[in-house]
Each structure stands twice: as C-alpha cells, then as structure tokens.
C-alpha cells in the first residue's frame, strides 16, 4: 500500500492550500488586473475601457522626471538611512548595557505606535520657518530654508525608515561571535581594524536586508514628498496618486505601476545576486 506516501502528499497540499489561495487572491490577481488595465484606454469621463493598445506604455516618457526623481532619492535615502542606523544598531547590540537593551529597543519601535501621517506632519513644524531655521538664527546663521525642499524630504525619509534599518543590523550584530573579536584583539588587531575586518563583514547580511526593505518601500513613497516636499518633489508614488485619484486615468496609472514593478524586479534580482556573491566570497575566506 502506497497510502503512507500519498497521505503525506495530501497533507502537504492541504497545509499549503490556505496560504497559496491567499497569495493568489491578494497578490497575483491584483497584479494581473493592473497589467490588464495597462493595455486599456481611459473612458471619456475617467476610469477604464477595455481595449488592447500599447499607447499607455508609449506615453511613459511623460513621467520620466518622476522615475528619475525616485531613482535618485530612493538610493540616496537608503544610503543615508544606513549611515545613521548603523552606529545606533551597533550601540544597541554591542555597547548598550544588557539590562537597558530591551527598553532601548522599545524606544526605537515607539514611533510606530503613532500614525505615519501625523509623525510626518509634525516635521512641517520642526522644519518650517519657526522651527530649526529660527534656532539657527540665534547662532547667526540666517536665511536657511528647509521645509518644502529635497533636503526636507531626505530628512523625513531617514527619520521614518530608520527603525526598518536598525533592526536587521541589530540582529546580525547581536549574533556576532564575541570570540572572534577577542581573537583579533589577542593577535594585536587595533579596535578599528577589528571592526573593519570582522564586525563590518559579519553584519553585511543585516545591512543587505535593511537596505532592501527601505529601498523597496521608498520606491513607492508618496506621503513624505507630498508633505515635506510641499508637492514640489514629484515621486512615482505621487504620479500614481494623481493618475488614479485626480485625473482618473487608470490605464496610464496601471502602465506606470507595471513599469515600476518591472524596474523593481530587475534591481532587486541584481542586488540579490550581488549579495549572494558577497556572502559566498566571505565563506570562502572564513574556510581558508
């Protein structure tokens, strides 16, 4: 009787079914709908009429600037977030007294308990004329303009995305084998050299995960440019909001969204391959 094996297969199928159906309905189907819409035409009063045309894709250069802005500010925002997050994660994982660790970690999460919109809105007042620029005037620096500039958008990005970067790095530093650091010390390595040759390479997986989380979310960002950029910094996310909610040009919006998904797939798969090569290389080194 082969029932043992077939029973096992049915069990596997049964256990996978709920998540597969969920995946199909919540992820695959909406993407298919978006792809179908992108070949349609805009109805005269807005919305979608069925058709098969490449017109929407031919029109993509009309949003070139938005793609450029996103593809410049998303990597820049990711790198800056990494630079700010690393020392914080390092402190939390390595330096912080262990009885404070949990409390400090909770402090990093606390901002998530308030609405993203409200936290971003609060920065209007910090960066606005009566905020930081007024403080700078006290020390003699006049005429600084922060709110509604690309700088304000980058500040907002670093603030909002910081926890997403801190946690993966924290986890990889936390797992770090302290004996390696002692060994380096015993062999006469300076603290700086120990950091460069041991700590930093071993935290690459955490940095890679954090960067990917932040970068992917940043590519779809629209709230921070709208609120802290005063609507003058135009991301793909903002173009999509306008196309779907204001001008109700769904087919063109769908074409822009599909293009964004394709760009993301290309970037993320190159990135993954690169990261896998880096970690494979590292294992070679450690075996040697």
């Amino acid at each position, binding site marked *: 009787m082969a029932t043992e094996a077939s029973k096992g297969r049915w069990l596997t199928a049964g256990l996978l079914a709920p998540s597969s159906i969920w995946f199909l309905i919540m992820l695959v189907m909406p993407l298919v709908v978006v792809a179908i819409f992108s070949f349609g035409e*805009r109805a*005269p*009063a*807005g*919305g979608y009429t069925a058709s098969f045309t490449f017109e929407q894709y031919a029109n993509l250069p*009309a*949003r070139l*600037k*938005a793609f450029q*802005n996103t593809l410049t500010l998303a990597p820049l925002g990711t790198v800056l977030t990494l630079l700010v997050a690393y020392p914080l994660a390092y402190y939390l994982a390595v330096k912080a007294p262990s009885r404070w660790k949990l409390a400090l970690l909770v402090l990093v999460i606390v901002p998530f308990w308030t609405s993203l919109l409200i936290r971003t809105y609060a920065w*209007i*007042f910090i960066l*606005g*004329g*009566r905020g930081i620029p007024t403080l700078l005037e006290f020390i003699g620096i006049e005429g600084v*303009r922060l*709110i*509604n500039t690309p700088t304000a958008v980058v500040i907002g990005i670093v603030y909002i995305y910081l926890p997403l970067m801190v946690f993966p790095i924290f986890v990889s530093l936390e797992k770090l084998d302290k004996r390696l650091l002692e060994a380096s010390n015993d062999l006469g390595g300076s603290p700086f050299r120990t950091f460069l040759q041991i700590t930093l390479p071993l935290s690459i997986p955490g940095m890679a995960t954090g960067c990917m989380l932040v970068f992917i979310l940043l590519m779809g960002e629209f709230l921070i440019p*709208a609120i802290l950029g*005063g*609507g*003058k910094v*135009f991301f793909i996310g*903002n*173009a999509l909001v*306008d*196309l779907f*909610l*204001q*001008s*109700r*040009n769904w087919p063109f919006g769908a074409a822009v969204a599909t293009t964004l998904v394709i760009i993301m797939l290309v970037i993320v798969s190159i990135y993954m391959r690169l990261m896998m090569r880096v970690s494979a290389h590292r294992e070679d080194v450690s075996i040697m």
Partner: protein
Amino acid sequence: MSKSYKDDLPITAKKFMEEFRRYQNGSVSRRHFLGVTGLGTAMAVLGGAVPGALSSRKAHAAGDLGDRLVFSTWPNYFDPANIEKFTKDTGVAIQINTFGSNEEMLAKLQAGATGWDVFVPTNYTFETYVGEDLIQPLDLSRLPNHDPNSQEAIFAGPATVNGKIYGVLKNWGHTGISYNTDKLSKAPTSWKDFFDITMGEGSGHTIVHDYQLTTIGAALCAHGFSFNSNDPAELAQAEKTLIDAKPHLFAISSDIQPSMRSGDAWMTIAWNGDALQLNKDMPEIAYTLGTDGGEIWSDFYAIPKEAPHLNAAYAFIDFMLDPQVQVGEFNVHGYAIGDARVDALLPSDVSENPILFPAKELMSGLEFGAASTLTNPDRAELLARFKSA
C-alpha cells in the same frame, strides 16, 4: 452594594452619543467609532437599533416616511443638532456617509445599489449623473420650503439639465486669493498680480493648489482666458506661466492653512471657506477675488434614481431648506446658503462679510467649473508636467 450595572459597560451613554455624533460628522472613522463604543458590530445593527433608541415614532403629515434615511455628504458639512431634530420630529433615523470627493461619490453610484436617499453633488457633476441615469428630477411641489425667488439664479442654475431640475441649492462659494497684508507691500487684485507677486516680492512664499481645476484656471485667468479653457494654445501659455513660477513657489498643496498661519506662506489660492477661517483667527490675512475671473461653485441636495425611501428623502430636503434650520447649518460649516430668507436672519457682520458675499461686480467674472474641464486629460498631463518640472 454600590456597584451599578453601569460600571461594567464599556462606555457611558453620554460618551456613546458624543462618539456617535463625531462619527456622524465624519470626524472619526467607522472603525474608531465601533472600537471606542465597544459595538464592534456591523453598521446594519446600528441602523436597525438607533431609530427605537433615539425617538418614539410619530405620525407625520406628509404620509408614511418609514423609519430610516441614508444621507451622503461631505465631512463637517451639516449641523448634527438638525439631524437629531429631524429624527425626533419624524421618527426617521438618518445614517450619514461622508465622502472626500465627487469622483468617489460618482464611482459608488455607478457601482449601483448604494441605498442612498439624499446626496450632495457639486455643480459640474449634474450632466454626468443625468447622462448616466443615476439621478431623478425633483418634484418641487413636495418641497414647500423651496423658494426660487429668494435665490440668485446663477447659483441654482447648474442643477437644471435639459429643462428639468435635479437639485436644490445647498451652499455656494468661490475661489480667490488669500494674502498676508503684513508681509506684502501691495495687495493683489487679480490673478495677473498673483503671479507677478509670486515671481517678485513674494518669491518663495506663495502656494498654489494641488488641483488642476483651480491652479491651471488661475494661470488661464492671469492671461485673460476662460477659467475653463481647454484650448491647447491657451493652455500652453498657462503652462509657461506655471513653470516659470514654480521655482518661486513655497508649495503645491491644497492644505494651505498651516503654512499661512505659521507665516511661511504669504499668499495662496484659497477656497473661501479656508479664507474665512484664516481671516477669523488672523485678521491680517485678507481675501480677494481676481478682477480677471475665477471659480464659483455650488452644492445641491439631490435624490439618486434608486432612492429606497423617497418620502423620507423629500421630507428631509424640505426640512433642511427651512431658513431657521439653514442658519444652524451655516453656523456649523460657514459656507453661504444663497437664500435671501436665510441671509436676513444672519448677524450683519456676517451678512456683510466680503469673504462670504463679495461685491457683485467681482462676482460677475466668475465661472462654474465645467465637467469637460475636470475630465480633460490634457489638463491632467499639464499639471503633472508642472509638478515634476
């Protein structure tokens, strides 16, 4: 035994009604309301439970009104006390839905089976609603409080399509320029001034709306063209003005109040409701219409084609048209009613306020936004080029 059954309730009756009013106003979401009150059940349960809870049913002269009515409107655009009074007088419980835009309302009605009895469309939507057969003509004989002679024909006009009347006037307003008199040496009087000041004295301190109708409309008016122009050559000139002005702008945003209040922004395109609130708190922020034109709008009470509670719908609209009731509405939302009988009841500092009631000669240049202007894809693309420039 001092413990009362009330101690175990998740919320007191008074607090419940407060939360219920906030929810009806659209100030809080349904999820918040259901969470806070501990109801956690569907709206249907609430709708069924409230008529009995709020009032004993009374007979009404206008025949059988039923016990419920569904009213779709904009957030903070009605007086909760009036809603309560109607329910008390008639036994009809009102369920209120609030929406963020006409486009959203249209999408809901197009999808069908809304169950709405009364809704509040804006001037430019009537052609679309009639074209799509989503709205019914009104039998004015069932609205004794409606008096066309006390209304300016210009405000009520857009609800008439093909000779039939599909809505009665609720409120009207206009779009002009709010500016800080402490910051600018010369007051703007036209949209041409608006852009000249933006690129001159006011550089870095001007806001335009993140809305193609008003922002492109303003640039068109500055060139002496129609606010509603769809002419490619005229739109090209408006685009040049907007793109030239962009480096001098403080923001492209419809959320004008925080920056005007903080003093970061000195001048902005403004709907007169925003202008009135700013002026009330900061008298130095004045408001003017452009001598070269601009937008006027009006909102209406109307009845969808498939309204399930028609008797209640007429009774409710007629109730809302009562001048005393209208005064209550005005005190809550601050938009002009457009009814001479109501204006006569307002205190003189209100009825003579130029932000609500501008001089006739300024009004004559204003235009209603047209459906074709709003749905014009060329104007949408123009705005996208302006925003990404």
